[in-house]
């Protein structure tokens, strides 16, 4: 079998075509939003919001409404609640977030375990199943992801300024607190559209790993976003093929390829990589 056959064979299957489109779309949205997540140190919040989406999904399942809506409501509400706690809370911030999201997730598991029926649907949300995605799902991902990207594009300068120097930005008249809430809301939506692809447990990797990889390689914000998108797209495509040929879970496969990209960047990084440090040592008198 030729290389071309290896590449084309899986794409004769409809679910592989849909999976590839969904994984690439989700990868792009996650990479863009993830750049802000990484630079503002919000990785833990990403993890918290994704877990907190779970009870929303289960409740939506029990009520018979679209799961996306339940997940989105829970995720965005949690993200905004975290923003409120960050500003007004008396507890240590990470403590408050830890308590909140573990409680939400436990609530989801408790509800989930009380369902007697067949709930493979919900399981796929925990672990992700991009190959089970329908055309309608892809439309939802494209619309919601498109909205997220449009908002980021329109507020690109403002988000960057508020992320780099919130007090300078606020003093010059930017509504920094609203931008913060909006960013959290966008993170919530991004997580919900990503959950079906990689699952609640791994979605934080989609947000963090491509941008973290890019941060090692470039030193301008928009270059970072471009490289993060490239990493995410490559990982989506390669991960899906690996998943097909090795018969491993698609979400895990995509995240593993991203992790390998990160490891390579860590070694090759011109800023902090192994070679850069060796060069520094060699240059020392």
């Amino acid at each position, binding site marked *: 079998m030729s290389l071309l056959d290896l590449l084309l064979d899986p794409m004769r299957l409809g679910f592989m075509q849909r999976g590839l489109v969904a994984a690439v779309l989700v990868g792009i949205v996650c990479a863009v939003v993830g750049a802000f997540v990484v630079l503002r140190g919000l990785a833990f919040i990403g993890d918290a919001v994704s877990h907190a989406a779970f009870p929303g999904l289960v409740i939506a399942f029990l009520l018979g409404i679209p799961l996306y809506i339940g997940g989105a409501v829970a995720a965005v509400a949690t993200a905004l609640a975290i923003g409120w706690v960050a500003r007004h809370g008396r507890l240590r911030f990470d403590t408050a977030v830890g308590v909140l999201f573990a409680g939400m997730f436990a609530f989801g598991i408790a509800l989930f375990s009380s369902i007697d029926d067949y709930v493979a649907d919900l399981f796929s949300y925990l672990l992700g199943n991009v190959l089970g995605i329908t055309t309608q799902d892809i439309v939802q991902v494209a619309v919601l992801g498109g909205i997220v990207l449009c908002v980021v*594009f329109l507020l690109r300068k403002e988000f960057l300024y508020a992320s780099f120097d919130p007090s300078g930005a606020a003093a010059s008249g930017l509504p920094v607190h609203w931008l913060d809430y909006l960013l959290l809301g966008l993170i919530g939506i991004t997580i919900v559209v990503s959950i079906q692809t990689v699952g609640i447990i791994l979605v934080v990797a989609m947000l963090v790993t491509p941008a973290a990889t890019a941060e090692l390689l470039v030193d301008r914000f928009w270059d970072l976003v471009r490289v993060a998108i490239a990493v995410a797209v490559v990982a989506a495509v390669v991960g899906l093929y690996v998943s097909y040929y090795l018969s491993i879970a698609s979400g895990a496969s995509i995240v593993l390829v991203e992790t390998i990209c990160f490891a390579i960047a860590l070694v090759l990084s011109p800023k902090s990589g192994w070679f850069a440090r060796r060069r520094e040592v060699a240059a020392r008198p």
Partner: protein
Amino acid sequence: MTLATQDAGTSVETTAATLRDVTVAYGARVALDHVDLTIPRGSLMAVIGPNGAGKSTLLKAIAGLVEPVSGTLQVLGGPPGREARHLAYVPQAELVDWSFPVTVGDIAMMGRVPLIGIGRSPTAEDRAAVREALATVGMVEHERRQIGALSGGQRRRVFLARALAAHPDLFLLDEPVTGVDATTEEDLMRVLEAQVEGGSTVIASTHDLAAAAHHFHQVTLINGRVVATGPSSLLMDRDLLRETYGGHVVVLPEGDTTIIDDAHHHDDAPAGERHFHEGRG
């Protein structure tokens, strides 16, 4: 915060900032205690005082970044925040994430962001303003460098360029010359002097009494409350210094005054304004 009413004694044309009985507290800790202060337009004012005296808090209150628990402020003729586009605030260097992936040019352009508007890209006019600001502080040739690669003095130059690019009427600078070399200090102060001559107002906090005495026209001595405000010759008054710095003033036999003060600590860390910016180090 209530809208400050127009006062007969201070006219909008001649006053950059007016604080009337302003108290600012972080939880139980009072940073500014019933402060009354009028800063005329065209001032080149140093805010002097020991650690924890409320220097940063005073600047933040004028910038509209912290809300007083009582009292009223008027800034550039309106309540804090209303004239935000005519104001540039530069935080202390140690509060900035220097590993952030932005270049010198990117930072200077941030000064233009509120003027450019949502969704728009910088125009030729914005680029010209950025270039001019970078030229003024001598950083044009570093435009494409990442900020982490700069020296401490260069970083202060870049942040001043960001402020200049906004063409503000009021500069609020938190420790602009702390920890920089003598040349940078001279250069930055010359730039601020020129801004004041052009009609702008500069309010800067500093730990450095010598710098305040040499380079600034006015000083405000604070220690939670305003001890004194007036021309920088006030710094010659040992009694005022003693009142400002408490027991930390040592008058040497020759008549020199030394102040024991460990510099470089920002005086209102805990809950001033919390953005979720934690997690990077």
